[in-house]
């Protein structure tokens, strides 16, 4: 009877939530696993939760029984025992602890042991290797071998600021959308190497059961074998500064054929980009591209208007460095010059040489020297950047 009423109540509450559109996506447990590891994790998690629930309900039941029956206002006379006294009582007192030992180290301990072994088996039979680099506040992906070897790109949050600051309707993939998702083939064991350029980040895709820290100066690794094609989303989950909530992970899992095709086209795209580095660029083209690169990569810290957020992030508008020469009389890069800062980084300012290509660096530097009220009038050619590599 009581149970029935409980169920009805539960259904009513569930229905009330269900009617909301966004709610349809919410899950009460881990999202659907798509790798063996996530499968295993979900399984272990469900088992442990069940065990804990049973322990909880049994203990709660005993307590509630006592609360109902052993009351002063019911005239219950208090006992005065302070411990088990007979041998039988000692035995029955020890039973729960024996049970707990069994639960901890056998019932839970053994499956947990196997999951750890699975989780850490990153190298055996790996089909391909990718390297993931965390940086404030984006991910860079590099394919280390196989069909896609050499492909390297940066993946940025695509959600516009207007949506975040409530000036525009939020899209369905709000905060979980990127410009360049990482593409992986299904059915292949992918060994994922992780590192970082600045602070610690954590690469997390719940449906893969994978979360591992990206640590500056060290390589860490994990793995995933995705069993189903689809788009899988996750987020950085180590506090990494003001953009921590805004560096999602998006993985496109595709069939092997599609992966090959994607790798071809991506390679062609990157080759085309490096080919244009040879040609002479006009100032208009550099400025147009520079604005785009700047707003995607630099404005999180230096702001769209170049005014920065002092003291943490210096303004570029009117900056001595930006309004100074890049090369000395012999054509050598001046230390601590504008280009040096952008190319090599300095303290919190990231080094962009590994992240942006020659054209992008040339464009963004040109843009900064001729925007926000800066009027250097000069331009940097991609070839000049290339010469630095």
């Amino acid at each position, binding site marked *: 009877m009581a149970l029935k009423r409980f169920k009805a109540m539960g259904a009513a509450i569930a229905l009330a939530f269900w009617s909301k559109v966004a709610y349809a996506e919410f899950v009460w447990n881990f999202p659907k696993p798509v790798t063996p590891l996530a499968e295993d994790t979900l399984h272990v998690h469900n088992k442990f939760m069940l065990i804990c629930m049973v322990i909880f309900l049994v203990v709660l039941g005993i307590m509630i029984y006592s609360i109902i029956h052993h009351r002063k206002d019911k005239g219950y006379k208090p006992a005065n025992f302070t411990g088990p006294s007979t041998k039988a009582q000692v035995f029955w007192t020890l039973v729960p602890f024996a049970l707990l030992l069994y639960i901890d180290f056998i019932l839970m301990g053994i499956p947990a042991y196997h999951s*750890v072994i699975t989780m850490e088996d990153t190298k055996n039979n790996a089909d391909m290797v990718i390297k993931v680099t965390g940086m404030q506040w984006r991910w860079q992906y590099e394919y280390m071998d196989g069909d896609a070897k050499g492909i390297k790109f940066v993946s940025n949050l695509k959600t516009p600021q207007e949506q975040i600051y409530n000036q525009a309707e939020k899209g369905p993939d709000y905060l979980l959308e990127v410009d360049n998702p990482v593409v992986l083939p299904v059915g292949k064991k992918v060994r994922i190497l992780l590192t970082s350029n600045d602070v610690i980040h954590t690469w997390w895709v719940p449906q893969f059961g994978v979360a591992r820290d990206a640590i500056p100066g060290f390589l860490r690794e994990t793995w995933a074998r995705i069993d189903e094609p689809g788009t899988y989303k996750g987020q950085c989950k180590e506090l990494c500064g003001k953009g921590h909530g805004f560096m999602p992970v998006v993985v496109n899992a595709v069939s092997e054929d599609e992966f090959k095709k994607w790798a071809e086209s991506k390679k062609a795209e990157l080759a085309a980009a490096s080919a244009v580095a040879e040609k002479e660029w006009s100032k208009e083209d550099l400025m147009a591209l520079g604005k785009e690169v700047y707003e995607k990569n630099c404005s999180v810290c230096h702001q769209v208007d170049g005014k920065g957020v002092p003291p943490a992030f210096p303004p570029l508008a009117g900056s001595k460095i930006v309004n100074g020469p890049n090369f000395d009389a012999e054509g050598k890069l001046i230390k601590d010059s504008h280009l040096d800062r952008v190319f090599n980084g300095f303290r919190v300012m990231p080094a962009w040489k590994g992240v942006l290509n020659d054209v992008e660096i040339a464009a963004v530097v040109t843009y900064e020297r001729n925007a926000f009220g800066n009027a250097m009038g000069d331009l940097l050619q991609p070839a000049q950047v290339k010469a630095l590599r």
Partner: protein
Amino acid sequence: MTTAAQAHEAHHDHHPTGIMRWLTTTNHKDIGTMYLVFALIMFMVGGAMALAVRAELFQPGMQLMRPEFFNQLIGVHALIMIFAALMPAATGFANWLIPLQIGAPDMALPRLNNWGFWLLPPAAILLTLPFILALFGIGDGAIATGWTFYAPLSVQEGIGVDFAIFAVHLLGISSVMGSINIIVTIFNMRAPGMTMMKLPLFAWGWLITAFLLIATIPVLAGAVTMLLTDRHFGTHFFNAAGGGDPILFQHLFWFFGHPEVYILLLPVWGFIPHILSAFSRKPTYGYKAQVYSFWAIGILSLVVWAHHVFTVGMPVPALLYFMYSTMSISLPLAVLFFCWIATMWRGAMSFETPMLFATGWIILFGIGGLTGLVLADVAADAQYHHSYFVVAHFHYTLFAGGMMGMMAGTYFWLPKMTGRMYSEKLGKLHFWLTAIAFNLTFMPQFFLGLAGMPRRIPDYALQFAEFNMISSIGAFILGLSQLIFVYNIVSCIRGQGEKAADKPWEGAEGLEWTLSSPPPYHSFTVQPVVK
């Protein structure tokens, strides 16, 4: 005896009045009161920050603040709640109760005691000052790394980190001094006949806490000092490019951070049995077992820290060791739960406010403990870690297990401390609002975490919207209902309410109940003898 003693004492005892009384006092009750009042104020300050956080998270999108400021709020909220609310509250109770419970005239080192307290307000100011400085354009606000100070983020961030480092130093020194005082008092000032195995459990809990503090605070102090030199003096302890290791910081931090959890909980585990036994009108079950469990947990807590950092990538044997050692804490903890419930079993229970809090505490802390057990599982931890599941878990252990325990203790000893009864009606209302709103706030967070919401994010994807809204509503009810608590305490201090008997609780046991309510300024003019 008491009235005669009081009259006599009022006659010849001159201590300064007004502000000087509080600045210079070496009286354990005065100092205890200051600690408790300080803790209550900081509880409200830290709570206000939590409410600002929950207000921002009420809906997706950035509404009220910038992400930088959000990050400052979460970190300072945690530092305040841990170091400036829970720890001082525990020390306040220790000051008040340990001398009374062991039959000592005062704490062993009264001047150290005074100093220990007066380090706290400057520390609280250091923590929060950067917020105010930022308003005047100095620096960029308070520490924005979360309370964990992880390098290299904390090397990168602004002056808020330096302020927090010095605040932690002051708080640490204060805690160590308090601990030394408590250890010395318990070892040397017990009334004749009070052997260690007759020590009240509250004193036992605190004794272990004090040892843990002395063992771990220096490690924290060392770690943040290394951070300071990395920031300003060119060292590279935590910088791989200079031969250091960012993960070293996490290991040092959690070598302190894990025992810290038990530092906060042991005093509560200490006084819960007093309350349970009083309102069950039945002696504490398994006294010895509880003492040994305190020891076991204290020692184990020093060797399990790395379960906080499973995702950094560790060798398999290390993962297994930290997993199994963490799971084994469930054994002594289960002993405690067993004893608490066995104390209630076949008692003659009544449910005044302290007992309500103690009972609710067992249930909610139980949820915290059990979710801790699943968190020990390394593979699943990859999902739980730094998700809202963990946020919910540690609020079940630290708000329910810590704060609500402190509330139980407050209602239990408030009549003794102030000589007045609080309003039972309001106390019960406070309990029910707190318990319900607490679950409304934190239960949804378990599910948010499972569904994939990371912690410490100022904005979230749309599928998390409903549960965040529920959680925020719960948080506001929870926050506002604490005003009842404050009202209850303030009215007792102001002498409103019925006069309290020397022993207001029928089943209460212990030397503190043999004194008048409130106890005379100098307790025990005649040393009691324990049989």
